[in-house]
């Protein structure tokens, strides 16, 4: 899409976007925290790594929620975040299978 042709955003869809960011943003953050855990040393093992993995949810969740208002409307926010969830959980499954 050309920059000039971009549809204008407005604040009307705040509730739909916020709820998408809170709910699907959370599940996305959990899945991505798992992907990060699987791809970094230590994987899913050890008390300290388990704590670190938990800490990763907050920045991921806040980032998704922060940028969710860039979607043009609520439906697009839900749709794209649902798709991102499918991709992230697929990736998590792959990472976990590889990690054994």
């Amino acid at each position, binding site marked *: 899409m050309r920059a000039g042709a971009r549809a204008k955003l407005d604040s009307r869809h*705040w509730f739909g976007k916020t709820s998408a960011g809170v709910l699907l943003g959370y599940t996305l953050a*959990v899945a991505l925290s798992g992907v990060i855990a699987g791809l970094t040393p230590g994987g899913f093992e050890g008390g300290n790594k388990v704590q670190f993995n938990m800490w990763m949810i907050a920045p991921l969740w806040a980032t998704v929620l922060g940028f969710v208002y860039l979607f043009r409307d609520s439906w697009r926010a839900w749709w794209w975040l649902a798709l991102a969830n499918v991709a992230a959980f697929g990736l998590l499954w792959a990472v976990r299978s590889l990690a054994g």
Partner: protein
Amino acid sequence: MKIGTDIIKVYKDVHIWVGIVCGLMLFIAFYAGSITMFEKPLERWATPPSALSPPPPLENAEKLLDAVLAERPQAAKGYSIVVTPTTDQPARVIWAERGERPRQLIEYGASFAADGRLEVEKLRKAQTAQLVDRMHQFVGLPLPDDAARLIMGAVALAYAVALLSGLIVLLPTLVEDLFALRAGKNLKRMWLDAHNALGIFSLPFHLIIALTSVVFAFHDPFYDTQAKVLYGGEINWGEHEAAPTGRVPLPAGELLVRVQAQLPGFEVFGFTFQQREGGHLEAGVIGLDPRRGTRARTYMRTHLDPYTGEVDTHDLPGRMDGWGEAVNAFFALHFGSYGGNPVRWLYVLMGLAGAALFYTGNLLWVESRRRMQRGAAPVPQKRSARVLAELTVGVSLGSVAGISATIAAAKWLPARVDDLMLWHEVIYYAVFFIGVAWALLRGAGRGAAELLWLCALTTLLIPFSSLAGVWGIGGAWNQAGTAAIDLTALVAVAVFLLVARFTRRRMRHGRTDSVWSVADQRQMTQVVSKGALT
């Protein structure tokens, strides 16, 4: 940086609404958080002096312990031997017994009288710092912990979004706005410049505080979800400690020598002991390595084999694996528990600057809804702007005055009431709600000046209660070495009076078309009373 105006508009709306909904709760959290930076000095200031005889030397700790166990066998389940007794831990041997209420633990300490008799005292560690910490953790909400924690977590998450949205709104004009403070006729411009400067320069601090607070609020649900999604149902927390196998624990003096040999630079506060099944002891060492940050705010603790004195170092900052060090750093960055008192004072200033960020944010909202006076006839301000200005003044200054009042009460309550925590809360909320009601009743301008006097007065009561202690009035006391608390309070009194003077000047001589003006308040009263007559 070029960002579409529609995007700016959307994020401005997000920023404004999060600010309006969460700003005042964040003000309380930040102000109370600043005060908790010195929780230990505050606790020592507020703790009544112990009536116990001076603690016996560390070599005689076991003799004291045996005497305690002979008289109070239940102490054997869990006790500590204190290496460096302090005002809040005034005994060589301390233990906890169950109280009447569920999960209530009452701490006792013991010493030997001059004639060798055993003395036992119920310890009276002050709960003042704990109350201020509760205000901080639960953003000042008078709700049960679980409900308040949920709201606090939502506020913290929204606050992270507010930081991002504020940054997006500022980005296009960041270069020209960054070092500008245009103090002139345009008040909105000045507040905006002040708000932007505070926000952008403390952004890293605020991001850390916001994200760590989200974790503090939600770590249980986070772990529960990850247990299901990542770990196949159950979290494996790693290896368990091997049970100690010895028969006779080493004396505390010997444990201290062995710990110091293993942990040079680690200052030992004391040892804790727990009796496990089969009669063997589990032990921990509590202390502080001042060269490292700590996740436990004011101390570090780790396991210790009481039979060999061998320290399990893998829980100590500086000796953990990388992931552990990272998690330890997240905690320490929130608590400012690294670098000693200079960093603590820095965090006090950052916390107060944070409170100022929310205060100026609300004032901006008020200023941008201001109705300008065009002719000679004065214009009443919008109701929404008036109410928000009054709430901003009432909630902020009400919480400041309430915290000062409840701290000042610390030296009067123990001689008069049993449930200290309850009374501390009653005093805080009474002053807080009086402050809010007063601001709504008197208008933002007059209310602010008068509530600032109330802040000055309640804060002045803090050194007065110490003075009463020096003179032995009303059961108050004055602990040696805690004058810093009283001096800090005196400085705060001067600041409150100074701000009150500025507020009054603006109210009297500033423009009348403002929620801060006395004229606006008077006129509003006229409008209301006329409406009532007709």
